[in-house]
């Protein structure tokens, strides 16, 4: 089933003035329910403008956004419903915390959905669990927490609405490698357990390669590619030209292949590289740690 689809989505800035400029230009893409899509593109490519259309924060100049087959702007008064179903975690979401306690901050979203106090409590607990916030943090002020913890609170606030589609814009920017791995692990678990659809905007090709099933490439306001990780990352040269990068290990393998070694062109993670090299070296059966 298609979860979210855009048809010829276009968004113009400063429409009708000499400065008119397309930030999103005719993007059509169809994302299946349960998919995990990495969205890549350099700063200013239009990817953030694009994702802000998916929960109705921006209204297309032309074209459509369909959520489970229905145009989200069919009844503009019900756009709030769309925002409950499509959760958007902004960049540096910890700057959006405002409540007195962690618990109340996470509860803010669900409270606006008109749920019963019991239901809200359940959802807050569930969301806190997903991001690994311990019960003793719940009564603390979010402002006492470390940067990584604050970010978890902000993500939990969106998860508590149980969105069917979850969009995260650079959720690990500025975190150290361990914090980054933990947050990605939590997102992957949430994805596995709930079967929700995930869109992950990231500058880290290593992380996109590790977690995403499909990759959407946006450049100069247009969709350049939408395909599996294999399909997209095999176009190393074009990605680099667009100011993107491929994982370091992929670059290394491309150079080895250029030297004539017969290696798989589809290596994007260190783990895949290890398996491929051991296979080629005739140690493929070695299932060591």
């Amino acid at each position, binding site marked *: 089933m298609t979860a979210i689809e855009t048809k010829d989505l276009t968004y113009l800035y400063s429409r009708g003035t000499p400065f008119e400029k397309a930030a999103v230009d005719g993007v059509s893409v169809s994302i299946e329910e349960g998919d995990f899509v990495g969205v890549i593109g*350099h*700063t200013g490519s239009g990817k953030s403008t694009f994702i802000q259309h998916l929960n109705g924060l921006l209204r297309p100049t032309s074209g459509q956004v369909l959520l489970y087959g229905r145009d989200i702007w069919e009844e503009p008064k019900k756009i709030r419903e769309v925002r409950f179903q499509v959760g958007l975690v902004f960049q540096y979401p910890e700057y959006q915390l405002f409540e007195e306690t962690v618990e109340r901050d996470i509860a803010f979203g669900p409270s606006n959905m008109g749920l019963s106090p019991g239901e809200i409590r359940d959802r807050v607990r569930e969301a806190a669990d997903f991001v690994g916030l311990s019960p003793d943090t719940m009564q603390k002020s979010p402002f006492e927490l470390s940067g990584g913890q604050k970010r978890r609170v902000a993500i939990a606030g969106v998860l508590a609405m149980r969105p069917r589609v979850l969009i995260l814009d650079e959720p690990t920017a500025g975190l*150290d490698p361990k914090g980054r791995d933990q947050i990605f692990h939590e997102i992957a678990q949430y994805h596995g357990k709930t079967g929700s659809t995930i869109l992950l905007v990231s500058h880290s090709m290593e992380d996109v390669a590790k977690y995403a099933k499909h990759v959407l490439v946006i450049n100069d306001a247009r969709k350049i590619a939408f395909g599996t990780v294999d399909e997209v990352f095999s176009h190393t040269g074009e990605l680099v030209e667009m100011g*993107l990068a491929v994982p*370091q290990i992929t670059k290394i393998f491309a150079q080895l292949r250029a030297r004539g*070694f017969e290696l798989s062109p589809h290596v994007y993670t260190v783990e895949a590289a*290890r398996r491929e*090299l051991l296979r080629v*070296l005739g140690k493929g059966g070695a299932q060591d740690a």
Partner: protein
Amino acid sequence: MDAIISAKDLVFSYPGDTELALDHVSLTVGKGDLVAVLGHNGSGKSTLAKHFNAILLPQGGVCYVDGINTADEDRLLELRSRAGMVFQNPDNQIVATIVEEDVAFGLENIGVPPEEIRIRVDEALTDVGMYEYRLHAPHQLSGGQKQRVAIAGIIAMMPKLIILDEPTAMLDPRGRAEVLETVIKLNREFGVTVLLITHFMDEAAACRRVVVMDDGRILLDAPPKEVFSHVSLLKQVGLDVPQATEIIHELRRSGINLPDDIITDEECVEALSSLLASSGKGGGRA
């Protein structure tokens, strides 16, 4: 090499914290060095860096930068013109509405004559490759460009030391590459001492020396090759190694004989080429 930073036994804790953010840290940095500082969030690396231009003052120990005791209030301005700092978020550092005015801001504050400001601003913008954008509004620039403008504002002050606190954390790959190239150029061509705090292991691999902090102490302090050979230790303290290092480490763990000091793409390609060629697995143009 003469020392530009000489910190002895620094102790610091934030108000209300029982733990020490800096736990008796000593560090000497020679003039012209290019040093990366790694450590997980909360390891004390930013706290340490903020001691070098007196944003924070030591609660114990003593810190000299270019011969100035950072606790000497009378020489604070002099110290800050010798040790410049660039922060993570470019949008928080730009104050003017035109690029060249932003670069001139620091110079105006210290009373540099206008004709000299003109020269220094032009030179600084040229050095970071932003001269052609001198009349642009900062909001029209990309993150990497804004960060280079911020760096130009610092180098216009002609500091001897530049401290960069995760300058690339908010940038895309192109922006990161631009900023890193600029930093390396300032160090190589102009001899500016650079202290680069980063979470990106490839940036640390491009420096001459890597200091790893953990729990307010210095855990490792060596050239990148040596630091990144401690793969398990780094992972234990929440850090990472470049993928080039990691694949070699993984293969070595599987009993394959490979050098243990590989940190760059090129070195990794060379090592794997010899390995594959010697096992007769095709190729041979190498």
